[in-house]
């Protein structure tokens, strides 16, 4: 059953096959969690979205039409829309609320710097307008093509390219200092 396609698994899910449910979760949960985490900046919120995504899979499994759409694209679409809905409802979220990395053990300076850089990159991502952030998340982090991103965001390919272009310009400005530091260190380390 490991080689079963998503369509086959969904058909078995509709019949209440526990193994198929588990395999579908194993196959897609981490990617849905990653998408929601990049979009929302919070692991707890991302878990809520991921749970909602799978509840919708369970609910719609019996109505799934194989071949009509790619299952993973449909999943991304559901997750992206759930994230965009949340962001619309919570527009006043403070990006400075992104927690500092916690560590109980003494951490080497290099690791502290890496964690600090990670937080600043995350802040820059969270500062993007929601749809630009979605475009960057889908293509850069989820590795989807421009065609898939356009389908998920329900826009044209040209619109996706425009969203991505604007997002990356803003990120380049926001992370200019970090980029310079990173380049300097790269030169120092040879």
């Amino acid at each position, binding site marked *: 059953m490991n080689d079963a396609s998503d369509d086959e698994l969904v058909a078995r899910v509709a019949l209440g096959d526990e193994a198929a449910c588990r395999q579908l979760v194993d196959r897609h949960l981490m990617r849905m969690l990653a998408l929601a985490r990049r979009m929302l900046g919070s692991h707890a919120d991302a878990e809520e979205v991921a749970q909602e995504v799978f509840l919708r899979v369970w609910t719609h499994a019996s109505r799934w039409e194989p071949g009509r759409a790619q299952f993973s694209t449909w999943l991304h679409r559901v997750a992206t829309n759930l994230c965009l809905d949340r962001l619309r409802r919570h527009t006043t979220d403070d990006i400075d609320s992104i927690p500092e990395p916690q560590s109980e053990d003494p951490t080497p300076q290099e690791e502290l710097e890496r964690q600090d850089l990670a937080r600043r990159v995350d802040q820059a991502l969270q500062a993007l307008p929601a749809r630009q952030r979605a475009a960057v998340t889908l293509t*850069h982090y989820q590795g989807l093509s421009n065609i898939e991103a356009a389908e998920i965001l329900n826009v044209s390919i040209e619109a996706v390219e425009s969203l991505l272009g604007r997002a990356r310009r803003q*990120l380049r400005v926001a992370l200019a200092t970090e980029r310079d530091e990173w380049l300097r260190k790269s030169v120092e380390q040879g």
Partner: protein
Amino acid sequence: MSGYVKVWNKADEGRGEAMAKLEMTLERLAEIAGAYGASPKLWPVDERHAAEALVAGSSDARALVAEAGDLDRLLAMAPAVEAPSTELLSRIMAARPRAVTGLIVSREERRAGLWRSIARIVWPYGPAAFPAGALAASIMLGISFGAALPSSVTAEGLTSLGLTSAAVSASASAGTTGEQLVSFALAENEYPEDWKK
């Protein structure tokens, strides 16, 4: 999305998929790398080969892609995503669809189900075979009584076997087996206070 020219190759038309060879320009490559980053696998599929060819042959093109690569590497420094909690997995699996049995029921099964539910209302103490058997036995006994009654027994005759005299008639005047049986049966219905009269 300007700055390039699509040149359709006639030999590609029969493949069913739109294939295009593109004349890539630095301006268009800047747009592509500026939007999709430095990795050719994320570039638009119909422009990828032309863009890669330009990068291979132009230092200016390589500089454009390298600049996009700097941002890609910074974005890759974003915090790693934590693994899903066991609670999340439990919640998702607890809500999964369950196998449903007996959903498709034949007409016969539905009819049997109706009788069974009626029997359950009448006899809610377990299998309905016992009360059903008792009912059948009662019916058979009734038919036996009816068949045993002589045809001469009329309404008048039954009246003459009134409740007060039933016991007497049962022991003394009953002439036939049927009459005796009826007398005994009616005598059972006599109340004790009637005996005192």
